C-alpha cells in the first residue's frame, strides 16, 4: 500500500493529479499473493447496497410513504420502529425456502442471483468518491448502460422458472418494458457523454468540477440538458420497475408479478436487487447530469465553500446524497401516481420519450459544435 494514500486520506484532495487513490491502493494490497484488496473493492459496494437498502431503502420508503399518507409507519420495533427492517430480515431468514414442485428448479434458483448480479455489476463503474471507483473503465458509461440488461435475463428466468401464469405475465411484460426503455435511456445518457466527450465515469465528474459548484454541472451547462435529464429519469424508473411503470410486479393485476412464487431469502435477494438498481440509476443520473461527487456549493469570494466541501470523503457524501435524493423522488412518485397500462407504457416510450431523446441528442450536438 502506498504511503501517499494515507497522507491524502484526511486532507482535501486536489483534482486531477490523484484520482482513484483509494482504489488503486487497494488494488495493490496483496497478502501472501492473494488479491485481498480487489475483494475489498468488490465488498464495499455490496456492503453499501445492503446497508442502504436496510436503512433508507426499506425503512425510509416505509416512513416516507407513511408520512405522505397521513400514517405513522412502523413504530413498534425499536424507537420509531428503526429496527423493523432487521426484524423483517430475521423473519425472511427463518422462512422456509420454498421451491414449487412444478417449477423449473434451475431457473427458479438462479433467477434472483442473476437479477442481483445484474444490478451489482454496474456498481463496478460508479465513482463513489474522487478517490474510489471499482474499475476505472474508459467506457464506464457504456458498460453501465449495457450491463443493466442482464437483469432482464434474471427476471425472465425467475418468471418462467416459477411456472406460474402471473409470473410469466410479469416476466414477459418486464422484458418488453426494459428492452424498450433502454433506447431513450441510452440516448439521453449519450447527450451527457457528448457534453463530456468521454465515457469514463471519473472523467465525466472531473469535467464538471469548478469554482462555481452547481453551475458546472451538465444540467446547467446547456439550455437543453434538462430534456435528456428528464427523459433519462423517466426511463430509469421504467428500467428499475418503479411506479408508475411497475407493471411487471403490478400487485393489483399480477399478484406480485415475476416474484409471486418466491419466499424467504430469495425474495429478499430480489428486493435487494431492486434497491440496488434504484441507487444505481440514481447514481448514474447524478454522475452524468449533476456532477456526481462534486460539491454543488459555489466559491463565494473568501468563503471557498466549494473548495472546503470537496475531497474524497465529501465526494462520497455528495455522491450518496445525490443518489438518495433521486431515490426519494422515485418513492415520492410511487406513492402519488397510478400505474400505466402496457400499451400506454409503450406509447410513452416509443412515441414520446424516444423522439424527444433524438431531438435532444441533435440539439445537444448542435450546441456542442456551435456554442463553445
Amino acid at each position, binding site marked *: 500500500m502506498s504511503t501517499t494514500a494515507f497522507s491524502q486520506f484526511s486532507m482535501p484532495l486536489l483534482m486531477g493529479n490523484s484520482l482513484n487513490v483509494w482504489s488503486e491502493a487497494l488494488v495493490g494490497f496483496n497478502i501472501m499473493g492473494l488479491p485481498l484488496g480487489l475483494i475489498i473493492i468488490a465488498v464495499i459496494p455490496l456492503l453499501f447496497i445492503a446497508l442502504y437498502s436496510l436503512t433508507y431503502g426499506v425503512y425510509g420508503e416505509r416512513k416516507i410513504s407513511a408520512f*405522505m399518507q397521513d400514517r405513522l409507519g412502523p413504530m413498534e420495533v425499536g424507537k420509531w420502529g428503526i429496527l423493523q427492517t432487521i426484524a423483517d430480515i430475521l423473519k425472511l431468514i427463518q422462512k422456509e425456502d420454498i421451491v414449487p414442485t412444478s417449477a423449473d428448479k434451475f431457473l427458479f434458483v438462479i433467477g434472483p442471483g442473476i437479477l442481483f448480479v445484474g444490478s451489482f455489476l454496474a456498481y463496478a463503474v460508479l465513482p463513489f468518491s474522487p478517490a474510489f471507483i471499482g474499475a476505472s473503465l474508459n467506457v464506464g458509461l457504456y458498460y453501465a448502460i449495457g450491463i443493466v440488461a442482464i437483469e432482464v435475463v434474471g427476471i425472465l428466468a425467475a418468471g418462467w422458472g416459477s411456472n406460474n401464469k402471473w409470473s410469466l*405475465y410479469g416476466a414477459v411484460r418486464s422484458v418488453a418494458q426494459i428492452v424498450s426503455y433502454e433506447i431513450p435511456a441510452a440516448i439521453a445518457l449519450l447527450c451527457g457523454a457528448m457534453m463530456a466527450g468521454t465515457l469514463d465515469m471519473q472523467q465525466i465528474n472531473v469535467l464538471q468540477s469548478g469554482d462555481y459548484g452547481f453551475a458546472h454541472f451538465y444540467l446547467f451547462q446547456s439550455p437543453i440538458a434538462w430534456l435528456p435529464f428528464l427523459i433519462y429519469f423517466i426511463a430509469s424508473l421504467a428500467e428499475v420497475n418503479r411506479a408508475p411503470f411497475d407493471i411487471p410486479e403490478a400487485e393489483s393485476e399480477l399478484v406480485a408479478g415475476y416474484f409471486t412464487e418466491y419466499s424467504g431469502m430469495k425474495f429478499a435477494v430480489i428486493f435487494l436487487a431492486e434497491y440496488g438498481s434504484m441507487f444505481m440509476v440514481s447514481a448514474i443520473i447524478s454522475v452524468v447530469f449533476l456532477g456526481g461527487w462534486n460539491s454543488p456549493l459555489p466559491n463565494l469570494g473568501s468563503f471557498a465553500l466549494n473548495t472546503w466541501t470537496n475531497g474524497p470523503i465529501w465526494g462520497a457524501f455528495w455522491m450518496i446524497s445525490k443518489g438518495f435524493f433521486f431515490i426519494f423522488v422515485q418513492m415520492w412518485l410511487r406513492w402519488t401516481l397510478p400505474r400505466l397500462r402496457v400499451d400506454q407504457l409503450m406509447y410513452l416510450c416509443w412515441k414520446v420519450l424516444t423522439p424527444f431523446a433524438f431531438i435532444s441528442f441533435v440539439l445537444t450536438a448542435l450546441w456542442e459544435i456551435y456554442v463553445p
Partner: protein
Amino acid sequence: MQELERVGQGSVRVTRKSDKLVIVEKDLATEQMVLAMGPQHPSTHGVLKLECLTDGEVITEAIPCLGYLHRCFEKCCENVDYPAIVPYTDRLDYLSGMNSEFAYALAVEKLLDLEIPRRVEFIRVIVSELNRIASHLVAIGTYGIDLGAFTPFLFCFRDREIILGLLEWASGARMLYNYIWIGGLACDVPADFLKRVREFIAYFRPKAVELQELLTGNEIFVKRTYGIGIMPADVAINYGWSGPMLRGSGVKWDLRRNDPYSVYPELDFKVVVPDGKLSVIGDCLSRHLVRAVEMEESLKIIEQCIDKIPSSEGFNSRVAIPKRIRPKAGEVYSRAENPRGELGFYIESDGKSTKPVRCKARSSCFVNLSAMKDLSKGQLIPDLVAIIGSIDIVLGEVDR
C-alpha cells in the same frame, strides 16, 4: 421469394400476393390460456373468482364464479322474527349497512302500513346518506388501488373513519348498525350529533376536492379508465343495472327520485349523470365520476335534512314500533337506492307467523356483476381490473 405455408396452431402463414409479402397476422394462432383470477387475488374485492380465457394478455372471456361467501341470508330470514332480520341485512352490503337496513325497514313498513314519525325519517336519511359517502369513499379508494395509486385509498379511509365514528356514536356500532328498526330507530341521535355532522361536512368538502385532484385529476388515472369497459345505456337496462352503474351509462335513474321514499321528495338534489365531456358515457371513468359527484350531492342532502329536521323534544324513536310484528297475509316488494344500486326486498307473510315465509333480497352487486362477460370481452388484464373496480362489488351482497 419462397412461398411458405404451414398450417396448424402457432404457425405463421406467409403468402405471396403480386410480389408483395403479406403476413397474415390472424393466423398467428397462439394457445389460449385459462387464467383463474381469484378467489385470492388482490383486486377482485373479496372472494370472487373470474375464470378468464386469455390470449396473451387479451381476455376472450371472463366468467365470474360466485358463491364463496354464501351465507344463506334468505334461509336465515325464514327462521327469525321480522326485527331480527335487520342485523342480517347489515351483513349483505357491509359497507353500507344503514342503507340496507333502510331498504328492509321500508319493505316491512309497507307490509304493515306503518306511519313513521318525521324526525325518524330525517334521521334515517341523514345516517344513510352518511353511509353512502363512506361507501363511495371505499369504492373510490379501492379503485385507486386497483389502478396502482395507493395514497388516495388511505386518504379515503381517513375520512371514512370519521363517518364510521359518527355512526358509532349514533347507533353504538361501527359497521353493522342495527339502528334503523321497523317503524323507528333503535334510539335518537345524541344531542350534539347534528352539529358534529355539520362540522364534518365543512371538514370533508376540501378533502374531497383534494382527493379529486390527486386521483381523478391525474392524467394516468384518466388514461387508464377513459373509454374502458363501455356499457351502452340500452344494454345496461337490459342487464338490470342500477345505481351509479346505470347512471354512468347516462340513464337518469335514481330511486330516490324515480320511486321516491321517505322524505326524499322534499329534498333538493341532482341525479348525477356524466355529461360526456370528461369521459365517454358508460365507461369506467363515467362510473367513477358519478360516485365522486354523488358524494357532494349526499352532503347537500344531509345539510338540507339538518335544516329541516323537527326538534327532538318529546321525541321517542320507538313510538311507532309495533310490539309484535305479525303482518297480514300478503307479499310486498320494496326497493331503495343503495350506494351500489337498487336493493329490493321481496317479503311474503302468511299472516300467522312472526317470521316471513319468504324474504328475498334483490342485490344490486349481483345484477351489476352479471354483465362481466360482456364487459370483459377483448380487454386487457389491467383493463379487466379497472372494470371490476368500477363495478364496485361487495361480495357480501353478491353471494348473500
